[in-house]
């Protein structure tokens, strides 16, 4: 029960951060990726401020060995760099560069009643499903 509530609250706060940061503006994202053209570096500050906050809390949580409301951590432990990681991330990067939208901002923009976001999120789910068929081992 607590997981459902925490996930909902975290979802709300996360989207507020995305909306405030400018990540929901595809033009800004494409401007950030356009390093050889009219580069807009401002979105670098999004990761630049998000990561340190996370790092500090991670140091605390890893020493505690378990989260407050669960018995164990569900954090990935894999460290190997495999082909799927590289190729998948490359394909994601191409898609990100095509429209300037990644999954989080796409879902957040659904709340702004953007029809474009609905197209993006629908096809995003189809793409993820296709990967399951394509890479079924």
């Amino acid at each position, binding site marked *: 029960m607590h997981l459902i509530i925490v996930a909902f609250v975290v979802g709300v706060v*996360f989207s507020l951060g995305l909306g405030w940061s400018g990540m929901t503006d595809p033009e800004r994202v494409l401007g950030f990726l356009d390093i050889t053209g009219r580069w807009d570096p401002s979105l670098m500050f999004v990761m630049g401020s998000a990561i340190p906050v996370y790092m500090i809390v991670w140091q605390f949580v890893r020493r505690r060995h378990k989260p407050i409301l669960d018995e164990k*951590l569900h954090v990935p432990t894999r460290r190997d760099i495999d082909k*799927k990681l590289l190729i998948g991330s490359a*394909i994601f990067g191409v898609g*990100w560069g095509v429209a300037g939208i990644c999954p*989080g901002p796409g879902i957040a923009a659904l709340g*702004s009643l953007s029809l474009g*976001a609905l197209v993006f999120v629908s096809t995003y789910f189809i793409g*993820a499903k296709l990967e399951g068929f394509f890479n079924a081992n």
Partner: protein
Amino acid sequence: MEPSWINAIWGGLIIGASAALFLLFEGRVLGVSGITGRISELAKGDTAWRILFVLGAILGGFIASNIWPENFSNIISESNYLRLAAAGLLVGFGTKMGNGCTSGHGVCGIGRLSPRGIVATITFMAFGVLTVFILGR
């Protein structure tokens, strides 16, 4: 209006805080593609929280689009649905294959200094830059 980099810092702090709260309370990674990628499997006991996260993120996006409408105006007016659909398919496929997107690899992965998160982020950033360089904005 605040300069865009100040909004990027504030938004980033909120994004980092939301991801940190999810880690602290539930021990889970706030990775949008990781959370959404398994919704369609409808695994018992492992689906409701994922849906609630998405609903929360949509509500957060609704609130954010009323507070910072300028950060949503471009995605609302975007009407090149073919481009959005192509991007959605690639992003869905790539993030599923590479086990993560900007939030999971970029914030949580790098925040834990995970080699996979760091390599994935460098890869999708590089391919995002390359795509914008080739296709233009």
